């Protein structure tokens, strides 16, 4: 029996053992050993190089989008990640900022505010709207907040879509506020003290500087008294309240904080795009930003930025059938290699998958030749090389693909019930079915596929790894 060290006085054993409970592999721990300032500095430096290294406008545009998504995700992170409030009207604040910029910096009403005046005003206005929306939910459970904000998001889109003919009862003249479904275009570019921001490269740097300001501000806020109180609120509102933390005020503050970040981001986006449309501020965007926050790890600043990077770039890649196919097969391969142990099992799955595919393809080719003569979407190297492996019906591919999609969902659900070797064996036909659905259906409908993947990602992440990539998992005591 080894001699047990006597507990040191004044040190809680639970705290002292914190390092042993720390999770994550070697890479993760190395990442965490780097100080946050160095981490973020390296990120900013790498990001700042992007417009210098590439003259391709599309690449820089994607970069701007990624930065904007990072900003959005950071704002949502304050509300969801730090204070644990489910804000489903978040995108409405984003839209509010964009529309407000459109109203005060375009020919719509002939008002042309410079950016140094418009941005602070929008920031404040969004925070006030956030406060007002938070008020009715302040006494209530988080769930009510969720539904009120979700409804607010819907109401915002309805209002903006129909805002071109606002009539009050008894008034015959309709007022046009938002130009309705056509949106408002020809917005002014951002104009800082007479310095107009025109090129996409310049917008990249504007977004990057904004991101830097927001991250630094959030870093210090999170470490401050308020930030710690938010975390306490998230972990246990009741305990927080007994510790005399002003729960309601902090909830509203977090809400307003998130809303103002979203509002300012909206204004920048509106200026980048030069136009605003009601459709841009609908649920798909909300789910995208949620997926970013959850994937990266709610409550972690670097995690959220990582989530925004991963998801936005993956969604961009999914636009093209050939690139999407690369992504699909490599994600399957990488997750198999990362997750399946022992190696023997991995070898059986991969080998089985190849054999199963060729055998099934040969069988179908013999029984029903038309079943293998279909054309792939795109059709580069992998597209051609899987030609003899996955079956592609020549006719009715859509219909068969639809049935296969439903069957695939059923197979995946069954898969969660199986364990051990049964799961490994069942994985083979499931993966083959997934490849079939991908080749025959999903690769042809990139826009719908993106949304389906986002929804599935949220479900899978919450069930398998709720703390995301870089978040810290909750430690339940007792």
């Amino acid at each position, binding site marked *: 029996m080894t001699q047990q060290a006597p507990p040191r006085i004044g040190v809680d054993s639970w705290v002292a053992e914190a390092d042993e409970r720390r999770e994550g592999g070697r890479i993760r721990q190395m990442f965490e050993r780097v100080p946050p300032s160095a981490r973020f500095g390296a990120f900013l430096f790498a990001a700042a190089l992007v417009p210098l290294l590439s003259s391709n406008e599309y690449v820089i545009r994607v970069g701007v989008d990624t930065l904007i998504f990072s900003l959005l995700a950071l704002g949502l992170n304050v509300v969801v990640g730090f204070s644990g409030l489910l804000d489903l009207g978040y995108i409405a604040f984003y839209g509010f900022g964009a529309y407000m910029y459109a109203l005060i910096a375009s020919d719509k009403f002939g008002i042309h505010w410079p950016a140094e005046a418009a941005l602070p005003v929008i920031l404040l206005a969004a925070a006030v709207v956030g406060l007002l929306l938070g008020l009715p939910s302040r006494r209530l459970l988080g769930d009510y907040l969720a539904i009120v904000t979700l*409804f607010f998001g819907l*109401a915002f889109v309805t209002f903006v879509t129909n805002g071109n003919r606002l009539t009050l009862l008894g008034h015959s003249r309709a007022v046009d506020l938002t130009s309705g479904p056509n949106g408002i275009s020809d917005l002014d570019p951002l104009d800082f003290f007479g310095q107009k921001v025109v090129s996409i490269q310049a917008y990249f740097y504007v977004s990057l500087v904004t991101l830097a300001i927001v991250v630094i501000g959030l870093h210090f806020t999170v470490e401050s008294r308020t930030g710690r109180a938010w975390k306490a609120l998230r972990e246990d509102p009741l305990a927080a309240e007994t510790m005399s933390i002003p729960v309601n005020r902090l909830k509203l503050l977090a809400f307003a904080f998130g809303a103002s970040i979203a509002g300012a981001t909206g204004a920048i986006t509106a200026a980048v795009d030069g136009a605003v449309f009601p459709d841009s501020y609908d649920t798909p965007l909300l*789910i995208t930003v949620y997926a970013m926050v959850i994937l990266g790890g709610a409550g972690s600043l670097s995690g959220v930025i990582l989530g925004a990077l991963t998801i936005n770039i993956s969604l961009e890649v999914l636009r093209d059938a050939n690139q999407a196919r690369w992504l699909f097969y490599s994600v399957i391969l990488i997750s198999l290699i990362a997750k399946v142990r022992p190696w023997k099992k991995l070898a059986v799955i991969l080998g089985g998958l190849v054999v199963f595919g060729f055998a099934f393809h040969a069988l179908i080719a013999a029984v029903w030749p038309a079943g293998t003569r279909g054309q792939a979407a795109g059709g580069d190297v992998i597209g051609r090389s899987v030609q003899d492996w996955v079956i592609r019906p020549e006719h009715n591919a859509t219909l068969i693909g639809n049935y296969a999609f439903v069957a695939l969902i059923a197979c995946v659900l069954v898969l969660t019930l199986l364990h051990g070797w049964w799961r490994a064996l069942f994985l083979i036909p499931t993966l083959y079915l997934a490849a079939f659905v991908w080749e025959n259906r999903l690769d042809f409908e990139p826009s719908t596929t993106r949304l*389906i993947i986002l*929804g*599935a990602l949220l479900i899978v992440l919450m*069930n398998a790894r709720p703390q995301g990539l870089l978040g810290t998992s909750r430690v339940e005591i007792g």
Partner: protein
Amino acid sequence: MSAARSGGPHLFPAMWTWDFFVQELVNGLTLGSVYALIAIGYSMVYGILKLLNFAHGEVYMIGAFVGYGVLVVCGGAASPMFPIYLLLPFMFIAAMIGAGVLGVVIERFAYRPLRNAPRIAPLITALGVSFFLQNSALLLFTADFRSYNTFDLDGGALFVKGIHYGALNISLIRIIVIVTTVALMVALTAFVSYTRVGKAMRATAYDREAAAMMGIDVDRVIVIAFFIGSALAGAAGVMVGLVFQRVYHFMGFGAGLKGFTAAVVGGIGSIPGAMLGGMFIGLAEAFATGYLSSTFYDLIVFGILIVVLIVRPTGLLGKADIKKV
């Protein structure tokens, strides 16, 4: 539509007549039936699990599509294989079973693993399920509107027949909807009040842990609650298809929100409250559409939700939740 709008202040010259009022009343009761059926599902699940099932609206949408599928398989509205009094119950039952099974599957695979997770986790999962189902429906059924074409059923009998008495015009289909809803509600109330399972359900809603200690199989109760709630939403989906014809992948979102508002207005967790709240929201929406604004009725329902939350957060029939520490 736009021509009528440019007509200035006299959009509805017959707005302040009894005919119009009765028309909107019947409209409101129909809508209210649908919202009440959706609200019951929200309320039951919330009462037992304290979970906001955002995917409930999508279950309703799938129910509407199942009803549509049955109609198409049976030969379509113009030439159905069965007489109408067999076809309609068949559609209802198929949609209710389909939606119910979907609800149970969602519970089993998406929510049950998270039963003891922090509260925000199942909420985000519910959001994901909702989005997943919506876009899967978009993939499977495309973005086109499908129509039940109930005008063709039996030469339009569903719309021509009915009660016509002076100003009172209620088509047969609306009578069917309202009567079916009332029947379902009576059956549900009886089930919850008088059967053993109903009793177990009430006990679980009251205190899940204590119920489990008394030997109640809580998982089974939750599955039954999901099945019943989802089946009612499926029935609501068929009703909407029959009355308003159009079904599409996005129909569940708005209906789900209004169903939830109805549940809150009535007092979430209370089944009679959900019925009352549904009727209230349906009538409010119908009258708001008729008398105030045909585009902003969503905002009016939203306003009602906010007012209820401020004035009476427990809803009309809800009990104040005393928090024990």
